């Protein structure tokens, strides 16, 4: 089991959908943090409230549901391999949103082309 703290290991200001939206985008989180670990077959604990002020849906959709949309992993498998952790109760809202977006994503519905390409 690997553990990622979004605020410490990725960015204290995660925001935006694509790399072109600035540093800390959902695309960068998905491609640089989540995907390499998922490719190893390991489970991931993701701490979402460690130094992070909050999230917009663009980041959450692209970062998490994008894994399904681009065909890296199915909805069910992704949900079984990630665990969302937080200590601030307000962040339960984002956990619920992440699960909702993953469930709504259509598997392999789009080919991934990096926004910076």
């Amino acid at each position, binding site marked *: 089991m690997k553990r990622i703290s979004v605020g410490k290991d990725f960015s204290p200001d995660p925001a935006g959908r694509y790399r072109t*939206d600035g540093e800390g985008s959902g695309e960068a989180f998905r491609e640089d943090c989540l995907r390499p670990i998922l490719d190893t077959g390991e489970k991931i604990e993701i701490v979402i409230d460690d130094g992070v002020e*909050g999230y917009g849906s663009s980041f959450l959709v692209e970062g998490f549901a994008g894994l399904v949309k681009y065909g890296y992993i199915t909805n069910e498998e992704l949900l079984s391999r990630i665990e969302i952790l937080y200590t601030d109760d307000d962040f339960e809202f984002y956990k619920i949103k992440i699960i909702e977006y993953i469930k709504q994503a259509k598997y392999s519905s789009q080919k991934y082309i990096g926004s910076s390409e």
Partner: protein
Amino acid sequence: MKKITRRQRHRDIRHGILIRRGHHLRKHCGGVSSRQEERPISSINSWIDNYKKKHLNATIAKRKRITLHLPEEMNFCDNYEVTVLHILAIRKLSNSRKSGNKSYRLVSVNFDNLRTISTSAALVLTAELSKWDDAIRQQLKPMIDNWDAEILKQFIDLGFFELFRNSSLVYDKSEGSSPINLVKYIKGQCGDNSKPRVLKEKIIEIIGEKVCKWNFLHGGLTEAITNVSHHAYPNSHEFSKEDKNWYLTGSYNDATKELKIVFYDQGIGIPKSLPASDIWEKVLSVLSGISSVERKRDEVLLKAAVELERTSTKQSDRGKGLQDLLEFIRQRKDGYLSILSLKGLFKYSISNGKEEIKTEHFDQPVCGTLIIWSATLHE
């Protein structure tokens, strides 16, 4: 290679001069539709003449030099039309600044009559004057001798005077006794995702404690910034990099305990960034000959954009951002969110647990999109 004719050479020189003067940018610099901005000089002059007979307070001196006199009260709630009219006049006149001697020329914006201004109006006015100052290579100079003391304090707090390079005045921050504490405005560009954190620090400095449910406001702000990157300044409109700004501020009223956060961009507006091909829009287009439908177009599209999670991309996993804007007010169960974009208003409010949605249309547009969160801090 071909030797060009004398006529062609003159044409090329004229074209080069126009480009250097920035005419290629003027056609599309933000907010108001390009169709409006490409109006000939006579249209801009007649627009001024027309509204001068109504609520626009402007004096015209020799050589068509215009001074705009701001009204006593500026806000987007009770005095929308007059407030917007004066801000729109600044935009139109600064856009037409190089149209030659036949066009009116804006030389001054006079604040002397101004007695009250809302946080949102102050931010939009500041953004508009900043745009004008940038356009004339930062030659504006503030003249504050006859300003109301409270207004002066508000604009000092807002950081208004730091806009102007051409200013040698010394301001006494202790002047005025307004209960409204303003955060110095934050100017950002696409991708400046860390700046909402600065706002939080400034608000805590003013209030002295954290604001409950701030993380939802933070999420809304980052989504507003993402929306600016994706939709407000599309490549099709040829905005220059310097034009692609957003502005952010906040205020806290010691007397009423009201916290206001205001975000503003000078882009094309939410209604214009939506797809025109959806069924509803087709119906609107068919009915556009009916004046009442056309008049309400921005209002209806704005409401649909927020409520239906629609987006200009038409992808099913996009367009959720406007819902994020509501979350801070929803979570606090008190306050309101207003989105003004072009001629439309969408307002969501909660009071005593009762939700209410109000929409409205106006005759004059806000140049871009203005988002206002308001909450009363009881805790």
